[in-house]
Each structure stands twice: as structure tokens, then as C-alpha cells.
């Protein structure tokens, strides 16, 4: 839940379009298990973070469902494709939709905070269809003419629920 709704939304149509395309591209890479291409979207010190509670302030003083730097993302990617990843035989399939994309326009031209809402369907043969929902918050920085992810925060609406194992990047 976002307690401080910032209405300082960009009116720059070009920027809005650019960011939306970036997010769609990212979602497409994940749904197609293009892990390396997805990981390349991150800045060198970029983090992928899924808090364990809705109000979690930082990833350091509390447990997180995921809190992964480049090294831990690399391990997860390699594990998902390992021939003896028993829980990926057969592999999990995902499809996600994201919308309600709000680009916060700050003073700096080279970084933006982006809010969006997502719906993710996940299925693996032998296990019932699962649905996840929540909000993404992307901190993006300009780099090499495009954008890089400094942090991707995923606020699952059921972050503090009883979970089955979560193995795919959300």
C-alpha cells in the first residue's frame, strides 16, 4: 500500500511512453524466461526486492521475500535452468499484465520512480494455477541512452501470507 500518494505525475508523453515500453519489455523477458537479458536491465548495484510486509521500510532490518543483488539473481537464474532443479521439472510458466503506470517526474532528468499495478498468473503441471497481484515500484536511472533498474520493489498484496515456495522472479 502506498501511503503517500504523489500526484506529481509526468505530463511528458514521450517519457511516459518510453517508460511503459521499458516495463512491458521487462515483463516479456520474465514471462519468456530470458533471465540473463532481464538481469542485464539492472544497474550494477541494482536490487530486486519483495518486502515481507506491506509497510516494510527497508530491506536490511527485516526479512524479505526476495532481496537480491546481482550475485543472488545470478544464482537464481542458473538454478532455474539447472537440469536437476527438481521443482522446475516441468518448468513454471508465467503471464503477467501490468498497467496503471505512473511516472513520477522529479527534478532530475536522469532518474525516475515508476509505479504500476500487476497481475501475474503462474502455472506448473501438477500444481494448481496461482495468481499474484500487487504493485511494482521501479527506480530507474538513465544509462547508455536507455534505462537501468536501480531497484525493483514488488509489493505483493499478500506479502505476509502463508506462501508456497516462490521460485520465479515476480
Amino acid at each position: 500500500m502506498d501511503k503517500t500518494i504523489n500526484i506529481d505525475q509526468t505530463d511528458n508523453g514521450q517519457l511516459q511512453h518510453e517508460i511503459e515500453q521499458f516495463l512491458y519489455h521487462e515483463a516479456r523477458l520474465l514471462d519468456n524466461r530470458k533471465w540473463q537479458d532481464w538481469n542485464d536491465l539492472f544497474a550494477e548495484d541494482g536490487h530486486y526486492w519483495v518486502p515481507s510486509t506491506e509497510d516494510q521500510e527497508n530491506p536490511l532490518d527485516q526479512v524479505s521475500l526476495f532481496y537480491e543483488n546481482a550475485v543472488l539473481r545470478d544464482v537464481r537464474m542458473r538454478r532455474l535452468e539447472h537440469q536437476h532443479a527438481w521443482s522446475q521439472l516441468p518448468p513454471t510458466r508465467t503471464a503477467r499484465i501490468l498497467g496503471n503506470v505512473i511516472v513520477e517526474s522529479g527534478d532530475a532528468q536522469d532518474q525516475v520512480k515508476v509505479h504500476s499495478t500487476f497481475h501475474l498468473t503462474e502455472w506448473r503441471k501438477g500444481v494448481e494455477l496461482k495468481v499474484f497481484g500487487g504493485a511494482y515500484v521501479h527506480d530507474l536511472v538513465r544509462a547508455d541512452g536507455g534505462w537501468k533498474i536501480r531497484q525493483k520493489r514488488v509489493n505483493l498484496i499478500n506479502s505476509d501470507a502463508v506462501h508456497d515456495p516462490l521460485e520465479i522472479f515476480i
Partner: protein
Amino acid sequence: MLHEVHDPASLVESNRVHKSVYTNSAIFDLEMERIFRKAWIYAGHESQIRKAGDYVTVRVGKEPVILVRDRGGEIHAFINRCPHKGAKIVGEGCGNTGPLFRCPYHAWTFKHDGSLNGIPHRHGYQGVGVDLKSAEFSMPSVARLESYRGFIFVNLSATGPDLSEFLGGIKSSIDNFCDRSPEGKVEVAGGVFRVMQRSNWKIFFENLNDTAHAQPTHESSYAAARQTVKKKLDGKTPFELHIIEGNGEPNSFWESLELRGYDNGHSYMGAIFKAPQDDTFKTYKEQLDDVYGVERADEILSINRHNTIIYPSCSPHTSFQQLRVIRPISVDRTLVEFYTFRLKGTSKEFWHRTLTYTNVVNSPSSTVMVDDVDLYARCQEGMLAAGNDWISQHRRAGFEQEEGDSRVADGISEFPMRNQFKAWKAYMAD
């Protein structure tokens, strides 16, 4: 069914168990009666209820229980059920109830010891032949509650051994858990994870001291971590990868580990992972040296255990401050709660390392745990198939050695499983 539930002890032989103990829901119901109403069950830690009126809900066998601290500092446990219509007095979770519990339905109120405080329309109970002071108008109490170094256990039965006798030699794990703090105290912090396993609770307990599963089960994660170390980190293994890749140790390593068991199904296995000897550790060690003296500090840190089993409700990991709490839900569903503890008096950096361990090993997203949970479910499903009705626990059977109040086995023995089922059989027999 091959074996009637009226003779559950016949389902356990010294080196094998009948698969129905994992799959038959009538046996599960009997376990809830005969094990979970007789054994001491871990309920919570004193640090979760610090102030008067603080409460936390817990599941004890099939019973929803409230733990609460009263104004004198004493802790009480009773069933989360209004004696009037049966409504749960508080929702699941934790909070502060103020000076009284108040049922949301008809506003009956209760003191922190669960006894009735007040009823609206009290005059309506005059001349109707009831005594409002009788137990049937209070929240049903839990027969016994005891705490060991802050760890609270409850027992639904008024008779049987006290907590100290029940724990026996496995108290040494709780002691080491606390002694590792320069203040000798630990506290729950940093939140909790909850994972549902699609398998019987005993499968998880067996796995906790099953050294032979680590290498085959966890191949995907340890191999991935080793590739990352080789390709991205110039061969250097950071802490967060060490605790993944350690499962890939060779057979000789697992064979060399110590497995030690006590009465009542308790046991532990020797450590797999070592804490890095870096600045964070040096600062911590200096703190321990100051408080305990070098010799005692060395002794505390020399006790290095991986999973401890306190049968049938929890599993501390003493050297990385974790506690897994096992709540059987049904014959094929097990809720596992993962708590992280802070060693009081230690640095922020030390605490962050503890949380790293929790995130990597005990998060629902753990790249390690996921293959375990998948295989537990495969066992649960596979055991429903006909044939091979007995599950073998023969490995190194009979080779364990008596040592005082414990028995010691070598690292690849299935002794911890046999030890659990020895306790299971004793509970279930009468």
C-alpha cells in the same frame, strides 16, 4: 487398511515404518490427541509479548491458543474461544488487548488469566441455576506452561514430565542459542516467514537431520552458486553463497558429521556452514571474550550445530539464530513458521548477517528450500501408490553408541529418524 488405527504402535518397527503413518488421516487425528496433547509444544518467545496485555496467537495441535502477559509480568495460555458462543476472542496474529480481553460478539470480558471478568445483562443470569465463577464461563485454560531461557512451551495435559525433563540433553542447544549473546539473551526480531508444505509433518522432521539428502536434493542450488562463484566472483565465495553451496560437500564430509539423539525424539546434527572470520566476527568475538573470558567464549563458539530437533514442534538453528516452528495442519499439509532471533548486545552488522541467512535459507523464495519442499510433496504423493508399504530407516541401524544421556551416530546414519519414531511409538501406544 492393513493396520487398524487401534494399534498404531504396530506401524513402527525398529528400522522401518508403515507408510500409512504419513498418509492416513485417522492416524493424523490420533497424533493430534496422543502426541500434541501430551508433548510439550513450543508456543512462542517471551520477547514477543513484552508488555502487559501483549498477546500472540499460536496453534497447538488442533487448538487455537492465546499467549498473553499479565500486569504482574506472568505469562498465561488459554484457548482462543469465548465460553459463550465459541467465537474466537482475538484474530490470528499479535497485538495488545489492553487491560481485558473483550469478545466482539456479546462483549463478555476476560482477565489476562482467561477468567471471566464481566457479562452485560448480568441480572439475566440470576436465578437460572448457573455459577458464573465456574470454569465453563472462563476461557478454557491450557494445562501447563513453562519457559526455558525465554522459550515458552505449553502442554495440553496436566500430567507427564515437566519441561526440563522433557527437553533433557537437548537443552544444550537452547543454552548455546542464548549463550552466543554477550548478554546471554535472544529476542525475536525482523519478521516471520510462513510456508505451507504439501506433505506430512513427520517428513519435514526427518529431513532436518537427513545428511544424505543434501547433495542430491540441493544439486541445482549448490551447482548454481558454484558457477556464480567461478564465473562472476573470481572464485571467491561470499557468505550468502557459502550457505547455498555448502550442500555440495562430498560424501566424506557428511559421513564425518556428528548426529546426536536424546530421549523423546530430540536430536541435532553437526554444522555445515562456518561463520566468516571477518571484522564483524572479530568484533563479536571480542565482546564474548570481554563478558565470558576467552576460554568460555571459545567453548561457546566451539559448539557448532546445524539443525536441532525438539520433537514434535520446533527446530532451532543455534549458530545462525533461526527457529523453525512446525504446525501440522492435516495429514498432507504442514505449516512451517520461520523466526529470526537477534543476539542481544551484538552489532548491527552481525544482525544483518543473521537476516541474510534467513533470506537465503528460510525465505519462501529460498533457492535451497524449494527443492526440499518439492520432494516432500513427491514423497507424500508417491506413498499413496500401492506396493513397498514400509519405509526403510535401516541405514547404519544399530551402530549408534550410548554416551551418557545421549546416543551418537555417524553422519550418514538414519538414527535421528529412528529416534523420532521411537518417541512417536511411545506416545501413540497408549
